[in-house]
């Protein structure tokens, strides 16, 4: 069983990547292909953040350890799609026009916060191996709480770029906040206050 599951999840995680590649090569992206790729990869980053954050609550409610076993891979896919998203912006959209890109990062809050979220993902990727988990001990857990900040940043990035209605971006923020609330150990808080 074990040998099927992980490769299966891995393949599933690649489906969005295959879809966008297919659309690029068959020219199915419509009038604004660059924007389409940017939005697609950006949204899948947020979806993977939500999926990754669902794993430990799922484990708690179902008692399957399976969820925790695929969590690292899902987290790495967050970085994969976030990097595709960033590369689309930097390479395809702005053609490595660094002065314009730096100007945007500094001046535009939605780009700043999005870029910050991507940077914060790097330490998590670098410390994702089993070796690092052992080496960092309890600090590893602390460090990886960064994902909560990254998740909030990611949804704000989406909200701030929207023009009028925030319906879809707000849904991501609500899901993320809900997933964070699930992590609060109410029993412990209650017993502490007593």
């Amino acid at each position, binding site marked *: 069983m074990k040998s099927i599951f992980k490769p299966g999840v891995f393949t599933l995680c690649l489906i969005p990547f295959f879809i966008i590649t297919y659309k690029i090569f068959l020219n199915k992206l419509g009038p*604004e292909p660059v924007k389409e790729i940017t939005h697609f990869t950006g949204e899948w980053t947020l979806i993977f953040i939500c999926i990754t954050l669902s794993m430990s609550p799922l484990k708690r409610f179902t008692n399957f350890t399976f969820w925790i076993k695929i969590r690292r891979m899902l987290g790495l896919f967050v970085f994969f799609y976030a990097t595709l998203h960033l590369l689309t912006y930097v390479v395809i959209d702005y053609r490595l026009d660094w002065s*314009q890109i730096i100007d945007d990062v500094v001046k535009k809050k*939605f780009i700043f916060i999005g870029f910050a979220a991507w940077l914060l993902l790097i330490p998590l990727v670098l410390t994702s191996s089993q070796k690092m988990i052992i080496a960092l001990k309890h600090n590893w857990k602390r460090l990886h709480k960064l994902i909560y900040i990254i998740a909030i940043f990611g949804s704000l990035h989406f909200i701030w770029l929207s023009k009028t*209605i925030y319906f879809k971006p707000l849904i991501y923020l609500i899901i993320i906040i809900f997933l964070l609330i699930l992590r609060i150990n109410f029993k412990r808080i209650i017993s502490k206050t007593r």
Partner: protein
Amino acid sequence: MKKFKYSEITPENIYKNRRKFIKNMGLAAGSMFIGQNLVTSASANTNKEELKLTDYRYVTTYNNYYEFGTGKSNPVERSQKFKTTPWDVVIDGEVENPIKISMDEILEMFPSEERIYKLRCVEGWSMVIPWLGFPLNKILKKALPTNKAKFVKFISVLDPEQMIGQRFPILDWPYKEGLRLDEAMHDLTILVTGLYGKKLPNQNGAPLRLMVPWKYGFKSSKAIVNIKLVDKMPTSSWMKASPNEYGFYSNVNPAVDHPRWSQATERVIGGGIISPRIPTTMFNGYGDEVANLYTGMDLKKYF
């Protein structure tokens, strides 16, 4: 400055459609088109030799028209049953001669000419569209603005029955826009009745819309029912929605960023994934014609 023939750059099938349209329009209108359809307005094409018309299918399927929804494809999907006949336009306010005029009368009284203009959206993309229309000043002059008239307010149709987007408080409905009187009287400012040699499609603002080529696209109101001459600067729907993001003037200006994104460059619609962004030009390239309207004004302050 180079004048170019529409026929040189128009795909043949579209061109044929247009001939058919001219036939349908009847002889009088037809001869008017034949006189003018081949040569574009020279003043409208300053430094635009490189401009390539945006495909008809993109012009008519990629639209910002929140009355029909906020998605780019919502207008084409949801506007096809929108009724544009009968349609009356009222011109009133600070005028000596208020007018109520039907669309049929407008088409008869104000012959349309072709104007190839670049449309620059505040979102950072642009299209090049062969509009059919006539200068707004022609119709304003008929109404005889009084000397109290300083601004022109454009009010679009309010019809939540037919326009699903108006059932939600996305913007202050009906859509309102405005121009200073001298901007409205400028020869480049046109009322549009068609594009690509055809009747204006519903998703592009049929039956009557504005086109002010040196301003961001949202200034060019669609489905206009009332043109009001006023003494005070009108508040547009976008100014009301977000005053620090959308100013009254909203001239295309690469040096003044939208608070959330840069306006230095734009993506050309239909260019595909390979085509790079192009630099945005002051007044969308119409500076020679319109810069004098703003001499002495701080365009960073009056954005």
